[in-house]
C-alpha cells in the first residue's frame, strides 16, 4: 500500500484531456491535500439507515443468505403486541414457500432463530422447494408471530443431477452432508453420491441454520476407537462504531470498515464470561462490559 506522507509536491504531469470538473485555473492537488480530503470524506461511512429492512439472497442451490436491519422501537412494538411474554420472545426468520400463481396461499416452511437488530445469517435448505420469502419477527410462547420486516421472493438455483464442476479450482462441490451441517468423514471419502447416515427424523425437523451448525466443527461416528467426538466452537459477531478498538478475551478484535466483527474460537469448557473492552481510539476513552 501507499508510502508514508510524502513531502514533495506531486508532479501533476498534466493529462492530455481535462480532468472532469477541474477548470484549468484551479491549483493542482498535492498528495497531502488529496489525502486530507479523503480522510474527511471517509467519515461519511457507514451511513445509518432508517426503517426495517430484510433482504434475502441465494448463495447456491442449498443455501440462502439473509441480512436485516430493524429499529429498536419497531422490535419493541412487536414484542409489546405479543403481550406480557413478548419481552422474552425470540427473534425469528420465518421462511415461506410462496404459492406459484397469483391466487395461491403462501405456506410457512420453517423458522430459524436469529439475533441482532442488524445482522446477517446463512440458512441451509434441505428440501426441494426453490422459491422462498422470509419474514423477520418475534415468536410468542403461544405460537403467535409478529412480523417486523419482509423480504422479496428469492428463487434458488435448480438442483442439478450432477454437482457443477469446480471450474477454477480443485475444490469439491457442495455436498448434502455439508448442507445438513455435519460432516461424516466416511461419507466424504465415498464421494458426493453417498448418503450420510442421518438419524431418522433429523431431516424432517427442517434445516439447521449455519450459525448453529458452526458450533459442530467435526463429527465422527463408527470408527474403531471413537464413538462420538464433538468439537464445539464459539462464534461471536457484533458491531460497534468504526474506528474503535475492541477486545474480547483480552485480544484485539479486528473490525471491518463498517464496524462489524466476527470471530471464531474453540468453545472452552465450563462457564464462559465474555469480557468485552471497547476503546475510543482518538479520545483514549474506553468502556468495558461483560
Amino acid at each position: 500500500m501507499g508510502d508514508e506522507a510524502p513531502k514533495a509536491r506531486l508532479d501533476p504531469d498534466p493529462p492530455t484531456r481535462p480532468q472532469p470538473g477541474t477548470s484549468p485555473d484551479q491549483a493542482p492537488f498535492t498528495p497531502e491535500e488529496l489525502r486530507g480530503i479523503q480522510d474527511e470524506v471517509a467519515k461519511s461511512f457507514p451511513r445509518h439507515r432508517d426503517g426495517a429492512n430484510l433482504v434475502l439472497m441465494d448463495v447456491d442451490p442449498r443455501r440462502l443468505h439473509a441480512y436485516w436491519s430493524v429499529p429498536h422501537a419497531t422490535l419493541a412494538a412487536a414484542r409489546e403486541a405479543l403481550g406480557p411474554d413478548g419481552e422474552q420472545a425470540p427473534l425469528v426468520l420465518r421462511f415461506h414457500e410462496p404459492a406459484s400463481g397469483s391466487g395461491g396461499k403462501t405456506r410457512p416452511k420453517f423458522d430459524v432463530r436469529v439475533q441482532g437488530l442488524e445482522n446477517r445469517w446463512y440458512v441451509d435448505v434441505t428440501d426441494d422447494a426453490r422459491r422462498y420469502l422470509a419474514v423477520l419477527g418475534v415468536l410468542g410462547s403461544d405460537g403467535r408471530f409478529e412480523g417486523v420486516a419482509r423480504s422479496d421472493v428469492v428463487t434458488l438455483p435448480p438442483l442439478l443431477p450432477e454437482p457443477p464442476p469446480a471450474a477454477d479450482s480443485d475444490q469439491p462441490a457442495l455436498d448434502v452432508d455439508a448442507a445438513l451441517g455435519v460432516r461424516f468423514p466416511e461419507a466424504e471419502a465415498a464421494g458426493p453420491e453417498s448418503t450420510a447416515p442421518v438419524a431418522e427424523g433429523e431431516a424432517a425437523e427442517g434445516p439447521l441454520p449455519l450459525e448453529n451448525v458452526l458450533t459442530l466443527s467435526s463429527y465422527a461416528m463408527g470408527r474403531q476407537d471413537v464413538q462420538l467426538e464433538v468439537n464445539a466452537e464459539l462464534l461471536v459477531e457484533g458491531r460497534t462504531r468504526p474506528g474503535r478498538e475492541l477486545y474480547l478475551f483480552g485480544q484485539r478484535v479486528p473490525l471491518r470498515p463498517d464496524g462489524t466483527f466476527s470471530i471464531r474460537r474453540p468453545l472452552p469448557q465450563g462457564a464462559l464470561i465474555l469480557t468485552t473492552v471497547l476503546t475510543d481510539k482518538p479520545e483514549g476513552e474506553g468502556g468495558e462490559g461483560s
Partner: protein
Amino acid sequence: MARGYLALVLHAHLPFIRHPEYESFLEENWLFEAITECYLPLIRVFDGLVADGVPVRLTLSLSPPLLAMLDDDFLRGRYRTHIDKLSGLADKEILRHNGNPQFLELARMYRRILHETVETYDDRLGGDLVGAFTRLQDAGALELITTGATHGYLPLLRPQPSAVRAQLQVAADAYERTFGRPPPGFWLPECGYYPGLEALVRAAGGRYVFMETHGILGADPAPRHGVLAPLACANGVAAFGRDPHSSRLVWSADEGYPGDPWYRDFYKDVGFELDLDTLRPFIPVGDTRVHTGIKYHRITGPTDAKEPYEPAAAAERAAEHAADFLRRQVEAVEAQADGMDRPPLVTALYDAELFGHWWFEGPQWLDTLIRKLASDQDVVEMVTPSQYLDRHGDPQTAQPSPSSWGEKGYSEFWLNPGSDWIYPHFHDAAERMRDLARAHGDAEPESLAHRALQQAARSLLLAQASDWAFIMKTGTAVDYAYQRTRDHLARFHYLADGVEGGRIDERRLAALEYMDDIFPGIDYRVYADEGV
C-alpha cells in the same frame, strides 16, 4: 470447409487502481506487471499473426476499468517510471551473473524483453494500448467485448435492479465512446448469471454472453447439444457455455499445461531473493518486496529445489502443448459433428492475465496454436461468437440456469462470512442513487449538483467491483479491499449528502473527480430506471 469451430475468448480485467494521493502505490503494480507481461506480449502475438497473414479470430473482453487505466496519462507516466526501474534492475542482474553463463543468458533475456517492452510501448504504440486493440479489431483479428462497468458481480447486486442496469449500460456506453460502435457481447463478471439478466443485457445492446458449463447444461429445456452450441434466451440473447475440457487443459493445477515442469516458475522471483539494499532502488514502495518478473528457474516439480529455466526447452513444450490442444479440439469436433444439426463449437474461456503473467509461455502457446489452426488441419476453424451466430443462427431457445465460474459454481465466493458485510451497504447505496437520480433528474449540466451526481455514480460503481469481495475471500491484500470498499461508499454518501443538503464543496468534489477519474461520459440518470 471446417466441420466445427473453436471460439477462444480471453477476459482482461483489473480493478481501477490509481492513487495520485501517494507518490507511489504498491497495488498500481498490478497494472504495470500485466502491461509488461501480458498485454504487450499478446499485442505482439496478434500483430505478428496479422502481419504474416494468419487468419485469427479471437474474442477479447476488455473491462472498462482496464481500458480507463490503459488510457490514463497519469498511470502512463508511472508505468514508464516502473519500467525504467525494472530495466535498471535487469542491467544490474547482468553484472551479478557475470561468470555464470546459464544465469547470465537468462539475465540478458530479461533485459532484451524489457528493451522490447519499451520499444513496443513507447516507439511503436506511443503508450496507446487501446489504440492497438482497436486496430486489431478493425483488422478483423479481434472481437472486442465489454463486461460490467466495474466488474460488479451482478447476481448479488440484483436486489437493486438499477445497480445491475447501470453496470451494463455504463459499460456499453464506455465501450461505444472508446471504439465507436456498440459492444457485440458481454462477458458477465465472473460469468455470474441469473434468469432475467438477459433483459438488461439486451437493453444495453448486447447480443450474447458467456456462461459457466452448468448454466447451459442446467437449462430448461435441456440443451440438445450440451455446451457445443449456444442457446438463445427467450429474448434472443445468445448464451455460449464454457467447454470444460478445453478449460481444464489450461486452468487445472493438475492437468493443465501451465504446470509443466519445463515452464518458468512464477513464484521464485528475485524480488523475494535479492537483499533489500540491492532491491530498494528498483521497487515501488519502501521495503515491500514485489514480483519483478525476473525469474531464473523452472517449475521442476513439487519441490522447493528448482532447476534453472531453459527457454528453448520451454518453447518446445509450448509447441507440443499447442499441438496437443489442437488435436483434442479436432477429436471433439469430429466426435460430435455427425450428431448435430449445426457445426459444433468449442468455447474456451480464459483470463487474459494467465497468458504471460502467470503462464510465461502462454503467449507462445497461443501464437503456435493459432498458426497450427491455420496450417495443420481443416477440421476446426477459429470463430467469434458473432460470426457463429451469423453463420448458424436460430439457436435452441432455453432458459439458462443460475451459475458463475467461481468456486462451487454459484455465488459463495463473493458472498461468505468474509465479505457479506458489504452487500447491505451496496444495496442501500444503490437505492439512494436511484432516488437521487429520480429526484434530481433535471440537474443542469456542469452545475455543482450535476457534477456531484455524476461523481456519486462513479463512486458507487467503483465500490461494487467484484475484485474487493474476491480479495476478502482469498485473504491477500484484504486491508486494501476494505479500504477501497469503504472509501468509495464514503465518497458516494458524502456526495449524496451534499446534493440532498444543497452544500457541495467544489474543491473536495474536484479532488474526488481527480482521484476517481473514470467514465467521463457517465450519465447518472441511468439509475433512475428500475430495470427491465
